[in-house]
C-alpha cells in the first residue's frame, strides 16, 4: 500500500515535469516559425497592364519564380475547357499565373514562344500554355499560387475570389 502511494507521487511529479517540458517545446516550436518580416515579405504586387501577349514574365514571390503569361486571342480560342479553367481573367484578358517549377523535381521549365509550351531542361518534361503537364515525367500541372486580382494588378500570396473558385474546381495543381 505504502509502496504504491510512493510510486503514485513519483508519477504525479513526472507528469507535472512532463507538462513543463511540453510547454518549453511549444516555445521552441514557435521560435522556428518564419519571422514577421519574412511573412510580411510574402505578398508581392505585380502590375500586369504592361505585359505583352505571348511573352513570358517571371516575378519572384517567396523566393520562387512566378510565371505570368498573357495569352493571345488565338491561344484562348483553341484552348480546351480544362485549360481555360486555369486562366486568370484580368481586365478581360486571359493570363497564366503559376509557380514556375516543374512538378517532377523542381527545375524551372523554359517557355517556347513558337510552340506555346514549356519544356523542362532537366528531364524533358513538357507543359502546355496553361501549365498542364503534357509529357512525362512531371506528374501534375504547375501549381497556381494564391492570388488576388485588384484592377490591373495581382497580389500574390492573397486568396481572392478567382483563386477560391479555382480551388473549389480543383484545378490549382
Amino acid at each position, binding site marked *: 500500500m505504502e509502496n504504491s502511494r*510512493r510510486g503514485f*507521487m513519483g508519477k504525479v*511529479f513526472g507528469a507535472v515535469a512532463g*507538462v513543463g517540458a511540453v510547454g518549453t517545446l511549444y516555445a521552441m516550436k514557435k521560435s522556428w516559425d518564419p519571422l514577421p518580416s519574412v511573412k510580411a515579405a510574402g505578398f508581392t504586387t505585380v502590375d500586369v497592364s504592361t505585359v505583352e501577349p505571348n511573352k513570358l514574365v517571371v516575378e519572384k514571390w517567396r523566393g520562387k519564380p512566378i510565371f505570368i503569361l498573357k495569352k493571345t486571342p488565338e491561344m484562348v480560342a483553341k484552348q480546351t475547357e480544362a485549360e481555360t479553367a486555369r486562366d486568370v481573367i484580368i481586365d478581360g484578358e486571359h493570363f497564366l499565373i503559376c509557380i514556375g517549377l516543374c512538378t517532377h523535381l523542381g527545375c524551372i521549365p523554359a517557355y517556347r514562344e513558337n510552340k506555346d509550351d514549356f519544356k523542362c531542361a532537366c528531364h524533358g518534361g513538357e507543359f502546355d500554355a496553361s501549365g498542364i503537364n503534357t509529357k512525362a515525367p512531371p506528374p501534375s500541372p504547375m501549381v497556381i499560387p494564391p492570388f488576388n486580382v485588384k484592377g490591373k494588378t495581382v497580389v500574390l500570396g492573397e486568396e481572392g475570389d478567382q483563386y477560391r473558385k479555382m480551388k473549389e474546381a480543383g484545378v490549382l495543381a
Partner: protein
Amino acid sequence: MKELKILAIVVFFTLVTYWLVEPFAHSQMHKHVESEGFTYKDLPALTKKGDAARGQELVMGAGACVGCHSIEAAGMPAAMDPVTNSASYGVNPPDLSNVGALYDAKFLAALIKNPAHALKVEHKFTPESGKMHPMPGFYGAGGDIDQEVADMVAYLQSIAPKVDEITPAQAFETACGRCHAVRYEKWTQIGEKPSFKKKRDELVFETKLEDYKANLTNYMGKLPPDLSMYIRSRGEHYLSTFMENPQNLLPGTAMPRVGVNAEGAEKVIEYLEDAGDPKRAERDSVGVKVMIYLLVFAAAAYLWKKEIWKDLH
C-alpha cells in the same frame, strides 16, 4: 528548523549584496530628478482668455507662423520639403496641427514670445555666439501682446484633435521625430522610410536623409541619437524627466525642452516602449502562467519528497 535558519542567512547576505550593488550604487552614480508633472512652474501662467477667431488671423497672417510652419489640419501644406527647411533653419519646423493638444498652453505662450527661453537653450544663443534662434520671438501685432498670444494658443487648441485621438507615432513625430530617428520603427528625421523596389530610389531617399542629418548636425553640434532602445537604456523615469527639462540631467545640452503636457509625454513614452520593448505585455502574461505552473511543480516535488523520505527518517 535548522534549514530555515540557514536559508535566512543565505537570503540575508544575498539581499544585502543586491541592495549594495543595485539600488544603493545606482543612487550614488546617477543624479535623481523628480518629475514636476509637466507643470512648467518657471513659466508665467496665462492671464488672458484667448479668442480662437482672432488667433487664427494672427497665426495665418503674413510673416506670422505659417511663413515657416505647415498646418495640415487647417489646409496649410508645407511650403518647402524637410531638407530645404533644414538648410534654412537647421531643423524642419513642426507642423502645428496637433501642438495645441500635445503641448502645455503656458509653454506654447512662452515659446511664441521667446523661443530660446521657453526651450531652455539660451546658452546656445548668447550675444557672444552671434547666433540667433531660428524661430523669431513674437513682438506683438499692435495690441495687448499677452491677449494676442493667448488668442494664438486658443486657435492652435481649437484646431487640434483631442489628445486621445492622437497616436503615439504622431505625438513622437511632432515632439521628437524631426531630430531623432527610431530605426526599429523605420522612422527617420524626414519621415517613415518606405520600402524601395529600386536601388536608385532608395539612394535618392538616403541622400536626402544624409543632407538633412548634415544640416541638423551643424545646427545641434552633434547628431541627436537614434532612440530605438532608449526605453531600455535610459528607462521611463529618465526619459520623461529629461523631456521635461533636459538641462536638469545634462547641463549644457543642446537639446531643447520639449514642452509637452503630461498626456503628450505619455504618448511619446508609449511610442518608445513599442519600439524598444514591444513584448512587455506578452512578458507579463507568459510570466503569470509560468509562475502558476511552477507553484504546481513545487507542490508535486514537495509531496514526492515527503513520500520518499517517510521511510528514511
